[in-house]
């Protein structure tokens, strides 16, 4: 794999460790960390901060039968909750495991919808506070020029794109804040597939996409 040059910020990693990010952002972070050992190591540090903070949170009074109730829970052997932190096997293919869990498979399982200019997308179902989608941008094509009201995270899964700021290759993440108005263009050749999440609706600068915005749901 190529060397990843664009990484997660401390604030995103810290919020992910704290468990306070909106679900769509958590999905982008988990997917990037699956591809980036550097950010995985930094995430581990923040997890350790959370653990130490928990150890220094003081002691709450437990209910009188707390231990007995827990042992009963164990004896009942209800393992329906094991999914939350179970060890995940390595994914095979373009998409890391956390993303495959949301798509229901790898790249070939994506249910693309056309959004104009050859660009396709699939919106992934997540909780409130953010929206997340997969974008398919043919080689040489552009995503409509847009600004942001909140933060937009864009993670490259296949191919590469360029915008006014830099070039983004597989594994790279672009973190765009309010002041960035950019036009990502996929590099010639292989189509670029990205995972993009926003915590506020995008804002397009030309009339046609603005009219289309409610239909694109972006």
């Amino acid at each position, binding site marked *: 794999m190529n060397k990843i040059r664009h990484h997660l910020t401390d604030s995103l990693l810290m919020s992910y460790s*704290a468990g306070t990010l909106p679900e769509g952002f958590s999905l982008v972070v988990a*997917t990037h960390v699956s591809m980036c050992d550097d950010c995985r190591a930094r995430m*581990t*540090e923040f997890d*350790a*901060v959370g653990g*130490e903070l*928990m150890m220094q949170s003081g002691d709450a009074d437990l209910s009188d039968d707390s231990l007995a109730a827990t042992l009963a829970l164990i004896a009942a052997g209800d393992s329906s909750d094991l999914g939350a932190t179970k060890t995940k096997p*390595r994914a095979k293919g373009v998409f890391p495991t956390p993303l495959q*869990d949301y798509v229901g498979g790898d790249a070939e399982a994506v249910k693309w919808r056309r959004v104009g200019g050859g660009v396709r997308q699939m919106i992934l179902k997540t909780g409130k506070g953010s929206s997340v989608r997969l974008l398919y941008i043919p080689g040489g094509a552009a995503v409509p020029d847009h600004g942001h009201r909140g933060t937009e995270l864009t993670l490259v899964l296949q191919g590469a794109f360029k915008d006014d700021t830099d070039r983004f290759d597989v594994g790279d993440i672009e973190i765009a804040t309010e002041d960035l108005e950019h036009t990502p263009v996929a590099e010639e050749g292989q189509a670029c597939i990205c995972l993009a999440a926003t915590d506020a609706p995008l804002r397009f600068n030309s009339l046609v996409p603005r009219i289309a915005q409610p239909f694109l749901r972006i």
Partner: protein
Amino acid sequence: MTFRHYDGGGQATKSIGRTAIVVTAGKTDRKDWVDEIAAIRDRQDQAAFAALFRHFAPRVKAFLMKSGARPDMAEECTQDVMATIWRKAALFDPTRASVSTWIFTIARNRQIDMIRKERRPEPEELTWGPEAEPDQDDALGLAQDTERLGQALAALPEKQRKLIERAFYGDLSHSEIAAETGLPLGTIKSRIRLALERLRHTMK
């Protein structure tokens, strides 16, 4: 060893001996609880679990309440977290996380699932390299790194400490954290040396 604790009013107080301490060969080390997890994994040892429970459950519940959970919900979630520790004891790997870090990640994930009712996307697991046996030195190094991190956190000036608490208790959004210049990230970062070079990552 002195740990800083916070009472309900948010005042910093220092207390001694609230965290279990074992004294070995004249050197004070925080108990790492790795043996208890192994006893649960190997023998379903209820006494080891009870000791672990007495130490961790009040802290898990306090953390959940400070993160905004009602007492009854925090109690239910804490019992679930502790039961999850029993069930997942075989998955604990002391070269990847200390026991306190591991329990924190379980508590965080159960909180998102049970209280926030959302999914928690987790990174895929890495597989170990050719020498698959967890290395004792790596585990010891990680435990010591984590202990030092805890000491650094406890020693932070209250203002900085409060910012970290607000981030972890959910009072600061990621953009508020990004805009915050007083976070002592230099103090808390890069204290955990994970043996990442031993991890084999072959994703194309």
